[in-house]
């Protein structure tokens, strides 16, 4: 399950969604808005997203998690719009019978979300103009996909 929200993430409510009685482990990742990046003081962040593409791509990542790992439930909420320092930008929760696969699936999901979902982040600084962040890992991912296609491999 993947959801985009425009207001602060109600993570307590998300936590209550995870109810599988077979679960023995529950791993949560919270992505927070931090007050610095690359040596610059950050005041706030702004996220923009293509919601339909996010939903379809998130569904694929979720399916990959269920295929690769022995997990029971997976839920994710991503915030868009303006976010203040220390607010939650993203919340990922995974339950499993045992903690190992819950940890692995949670890491796999957030790593892939960051490079695959059409979500963009603008940083506002204490000094200077705000900029849309160019994530180098995300660029590598885009280049890999483009090169993959140019090689004619599908």
């Amino acid at each position, binding site marked *: 399950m993947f959801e985009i929200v425009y207001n602060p993430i109600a993570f307590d409510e998300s936590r209550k969604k995870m109810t599988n009685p077979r679960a023995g482990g529950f791993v949560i990742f919270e992505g927070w808005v931090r007050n610095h990046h690359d040596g610059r003081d950050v005041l706030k962040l702004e996220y923009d997203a293509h919601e339909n593409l996010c939903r379809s791509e998130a569904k694929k990542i979720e399916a990959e998690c269920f295929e690769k790992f022995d997990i029971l439930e997976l839920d994710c909420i991503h915030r868009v719009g303006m976010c203040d320092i220390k607010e939650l930008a993203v919340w990922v929760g995974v339950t499993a019978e045992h903690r190992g696969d819950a940890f692995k699936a949670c890491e796999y999901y957030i790593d892939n979300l960051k490079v695959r979902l059409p*979500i963009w982040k603008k940083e506002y600084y204490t000094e200077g103009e705000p900029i849309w962040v160019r994530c180098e890992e995300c660029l590598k991912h885009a280049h890999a996909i483009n090169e993959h296609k140019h090689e004619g491999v599908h």
Partner: protein
Amino acid sequence: MKVNVQYFAMLKESVGKSEELVEINPMPILDFYDHLNAKYQFKLNEKDIRFAVNDHFVDSDYLLKENDDIVFIPPVGGG
């Protein structure tokens, strides 16, 4: 033919609007991006861009059709 283009993030700021209807001849989506890039000066390397049509990612050689809903995906940064 007419196509609809949606703009996000830095592209939206370059264009000054979130979407527009454009009258074009059939062409690959990469050529259409180059056409808009010449007009709006996106300041992005085309190899950094991915393409989506009607809510699905497509290759750069995708041939545009009437009423396609087009999105250019600049470098992402979620999470």
